[in-house]
């Protein structure tokens, strides 16, 4: 028996006027699966991510999501509150720039606690304990819980953003270049952490990156995009070791060998 996909994307097209954002993209995402989307900048990766995560209305196509309770439903047909509750609880979005995903004017603990308070937690002690637990999980010292995010380093900010997103136990996480802007050693640590969390929590992830190393480390399956279209998709190792499409071959061969 084949499992039901968590997310079913069907011929999704986004246009910016006469230009194409992404065109006729179809894919399924299964529970516990990590899907990487790679391609050069301008290839439509982020457009696709924003459209699939409901932040951008597509020109055509649909995205079916299987919620905890209901049958798969089209996320664009959801009414305001349902969509927003989904975004706050079942889904998570990790931005490339952690400052976009964090509330910079409140402490780390309040950042982590926001989603919990949003779903009705009203006990300070419990919210704080949850915050401390998550700080430990993302390897930030517990005594930083009352510090403002502006006093954190770039790597810590990104880890804090991840904690803030995962605290509500989401099932589906969207990541937009989560390691962008970090130096290589910090990147490696973050990837390690992410890989551990994804495996432990059984998350489904859609991760957009231009870094093939990131894609190889994290994702099970890979989609290669060029000019708004998916030109190749398959298992990560298969795509990276034996690329079929000329553009994929170019992409793989352009990795610097040190």
């Amino acid at each position, binding site marked *: 028996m084949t499992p039901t996909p968590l997310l079913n994307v069907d011929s999704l097209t986004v246009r910016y006027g006469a230009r194409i954002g992404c065109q006729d993209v179809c894919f399924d995402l299964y529970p516990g699966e990590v899907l990487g989307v790679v391609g050069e900048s301008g290839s439509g990766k982020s457009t696709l991510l924003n459209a699939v995560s409901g932040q951008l209305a597509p020109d055509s196509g649909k995205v079916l999501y299987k919620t905890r309770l209901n049958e798969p439903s089209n996320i664009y047909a959801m009414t*305001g*509150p349902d969509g*927003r509750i989904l975004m706050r609880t079942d889904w998570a979005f990790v931005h490339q720039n952690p400052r976009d995903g964090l*509330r910079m*004017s*409140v*402490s780390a*603990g*309040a950042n982590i*606690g*926001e*989603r919990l*308070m*949003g*779903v*009705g937690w*009203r*006990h*300070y*002690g419990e*919210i*704080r304990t949850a915050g401390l637990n998550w700080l430990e999980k993302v390897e930030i010292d517990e005594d930083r*819980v*009352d510090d403002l995010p502006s006093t954190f380093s770039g790597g810590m900010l990104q880890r804090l953003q991840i904690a803030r997103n995962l605290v509500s136990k989401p099932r589906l996480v969207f990541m937009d270049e989560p390691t962008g802007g970090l130096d290589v050693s910090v990147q490696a640590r973050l990837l390690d952490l992410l890989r551990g969390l994804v495996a432990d929590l059984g998350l489904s992830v859609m991760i957009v990156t231009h870094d093939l190393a990131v894609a190889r480390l994290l994702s099970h399956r890979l989609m290669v995009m060029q000019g708004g279209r998916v030109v190749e998709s398959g298992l990560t190792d298969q795509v990276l070791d034996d690329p079929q499409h000329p553009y994929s071959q170019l992409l793989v061969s352009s990795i610097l060998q040190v």
Partner: protein
Amino acid sequence: MSRFDDAAYNFAYLDEQTKRMIRRALLKAVAIPGYQVPFASREMPMPYGWGTGGIQVTAAVIGPDDVLKVIDQGSDDTTNAVSIRKFFAKTTNVKTTEDTEKASLIQIRHRVPETPLKEGQILVYQVPIPEPLRFLEPRETETRKMHALEEYGLMHVKLYEDISRHGDIATTYAYPVMVGERYVMDPSPTPKFDNPKMNQMPALQLFGAGREKRIYAIPPYTEVKSLDFEDYPFTIQKWEEACALCGETESFLDEVILDDHGGRMFVCSDTHFCKTRREQGHTGVQSPDFDRTSQEAIEQ
């Protein structure tokens, strides 16, 4: 001829169309307790921040038979209160009073009178920033959505932040309340001491924000609950001192510096309340006829 005829102002300064527009907003506000109704706020002959929202609401509801009281920080005789009282005395010719019980319409800034209000009275609040979520979410489009969908988790983020920084909920004024189990509302910069008075109040409470162009209301006998955490419940301010003039221990006290040697006294911020008590014979430590022996007898 009455004085306002000579002054050539329309009754209560505003033209009739404007008053109708404000009354329509008020009716909607009363129908949806705690909801901020946009209205076409007018320029008033005083600066923003001095109560332009409050006087527009007062002008829209005041009638020739009303008795008006205006207070600022609890006091009847501060600049803001005196100016607004004179403004309405001149443009409407209504009776004015300092007596909370005799007033039918009370415009306030920063305090709710200590004397319990009764049915038939109207309380008008001057509001600088009507949006309780503003400092955490600057986008108006977003805060409106949050109100519409009852997404009030963010308000608790602010209270959480207070506890983690100060060990307790340090918000002492403009303390957010939930009105009628639906809308989170900013009770204007009144001290949280006054929040319990808003709950189930027999009088009608109207809020006007002139610069921000919003009107909201709490109809009589509506539930007003201050937000808090289960393990950090809402509390009001308490003073160790009693009022130095009337000896009251349960009112909101202002601290007055007396000299540069650390001398200070605490007095009721509600001047009419304090005066009434003194007239009834109550005394405090600073009263000329304060009876120290009887005070000591009470303490023993």
